[in-house]
């Protein structure tokens, strides 16, 4: 696996973290993280960096990235990410997004289709599908959430969530090691700015999906307990030529659960 290193990028809203790695002549692949803020130390990025020029920006409000106070809605989010693309000379990269990151990728691809060369939506949020609600992510007990996010509860991150279950995300009670809690509180607050109301979707997104010109792959974790398959189906149906693949033995946090498999899927798709 290739090294991925952290850098800082000055943007209009503040300094943000960007993780980069991989061969200079590899195809550029941008990774947009989910509401969990997974990026630092993400194995999947190192696997991608074996063959791709990986760029993984950490969204304002997550990790150590500044600027969430300047971002109120999805439109602000899209402009921020375009600024990041521009600063890094990314004209039309492949964009891989998980969940919240998939939603953001789809927003860029509908508004500025020329800026997305290939689109990979992994368990994407962003749509409202009647009868198939996205489960609640705000204020949940971490152990309950882990059951929906991971197929295998012995995954290290799932195990950590179970360990932290005594510390409630929703209620400020108990003796809480604050350093453990802080990143979760910050990630949730940043996510709430984009996805509290309407809940993790943009009512206008679906009717704009026809605008996507990038070849598109939708990846669904077969046992995702958070976002029902109907969402992946809707994306695949409304984006011209899009393909839907299911990954067995994976739930919502697919890039953490199946890094090698997802990397291989993305590689084949980007090369194709």
């Amino acid at each position, binding site marked *: 696996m290739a090294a991925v290193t952290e850098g800082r990028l000055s943007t209009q809203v503040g300094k943000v973290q960007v993780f980069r790695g991989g061969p200079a002549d590899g195809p550029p692949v941008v990774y947009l993280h989910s509401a969990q803020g997974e990026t630092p130390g993400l194995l999947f990025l190192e696997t991608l960096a074996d063959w791709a020029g990986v760029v993984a920006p950490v969204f304002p409000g997550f990790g150590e990235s500044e600027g969430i106070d300047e971002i*109120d809605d999805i439109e602000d989010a899209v402009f921020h990410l375009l600024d990041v693309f521009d600063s890094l000379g990314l004209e039309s990269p492949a964009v891989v997004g998980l969940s919240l990151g998939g939603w953001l990728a789809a927003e860029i691809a509908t508004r500025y289709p020329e800026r997305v060369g290939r689109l990979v939506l992994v368990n994407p949020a962003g749509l409202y599908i009647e009868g198939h609600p996205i489960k609640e992510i*705000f*204020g949940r007990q971490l152990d309950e959430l882990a059951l929906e996010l991971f197929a295998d509860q012995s995954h290290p991150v799932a195990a950590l969530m179970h360990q932290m279950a005594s510390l409630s995300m*929703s*209620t*400020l*009670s*108990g*003796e*809480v090691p*604050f350093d453990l809690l*802080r990143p979760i*509180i*910050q990630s*949730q*607050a*940043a*996510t*709430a*700015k984009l996805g*509290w*109301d309407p*809940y993790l979707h943009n009512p206008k997104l679906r009717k704009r999906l026809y605008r996507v010109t990038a070849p598109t792959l939708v990846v669904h974790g077969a046992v995702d307990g958070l976002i029902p398959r109907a969402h992946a189906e809707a994306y695949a149906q409304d984006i011209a030529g899009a393909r839907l693949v299911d990954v067995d033995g994976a739930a919502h946090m697919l890039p953490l659960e199946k890094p090698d498999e997802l990397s291989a899927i993305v590689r084949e798709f980007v090369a194709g």
Partner: protein
Amino acid sequence: MRFFSFHLMPYPSLPPDYDGPAWVTCPNEFFDPAVGHEVYNRYLDELVYAEELGFDGVCVNEHHQNAYGIMPSPNLMGSILARQTKRVKIAIVGNALPLYDPPTRVAEEFAMIDNISGGRLIAGFVVGGGPEYYSFSMNPAHARERFAEAHEIIMRAWTEPGPFEYIGKHYKLRYVNSWPRPFQQPHPEVWIPGAGSLETMEFVAKHRYAYMGIPYFHISVFDRTFRMFREACEREGYEYDPLQAGWLEPIYVAETDEQARQEYEEHFWYFVKRLLPGINISPPGYTSIRSIENILKGAGTFAINLQTWDEVVEGQYAIVGSPETVAEKLTESLRRLGTGNLLGLFQLGTLPAHLTRKNLELFATEVMPKLRKEFPEGARVLGDQAAVA
């Protein structure tokens, strides 16, 4: 010292086998309109009775979609009280400003109550509890900004000649021109309840409003809270006035200590175990990181964690006993906390009407006179500062 009777208007009849939260998702099939009819009228009677007994004021507050306090509109209650009382202050603590859109609605309704009551309104402004942001699907990440804008709109609507234009981030109002204007000029006394958030204290100190400490924590948390508030006032360059602080406390007085506990305890536990669960939801972005850190310092002592009556007594989660015991404990704590307003919760949980009335009577006749003597209005309340630390 000013004495207020505060009513939460709890729903007293949750099914015995229900052990879920009393907030946001508590099924409203549990609400029996026959009970509603009875308790709304009873609770209003209890507030009106406080005036007869010589209290200085009554307090109501706002909560939504819950069994803890079935008062989604305290302004309705305040307007009834404006007609049914003649002398007491009517403290509405408060209106959850971000839930009123446009917030000029608060300026209007408060001014109506102030006019009807002849200037007896105390205007309370709150951000709204964490659960309300779920119940309204309102973005908690915008709560503080909306509160700040709404506050500015209301205060300007009361104090500046209208019409004027207000263009903020969340509210864009081309014609602010509140009719009626408040009876009290330039505006009613303003109270802000808080749970220990530093931002709230600094806001209150800056505007020279009054800070009401939200209860259900160990008494030591109030020591710290009011000390932080006094320091916030000092940082604003002035010494705080005791009337700028209020202590909200469940109180029960009976003939003897034993009788008080015996009559009160089960009703207190209904409140703690059935009505509090769910109140402490803190939605993302609702509170800043530095405030969360401060609130967490007291969180372990939140009443929801109480197990034994000894803990209740030791931490003064409620002050319960004979008139002598209650007067003694209140005197000691009021002197230490330095608050010039005592907001008593004389009805809590399932406490029935006859015990609530007896409690109010004993407090008014046997405790209040002693405290009035200890703490003459306008006099310094705070004792030895060093003892507070």
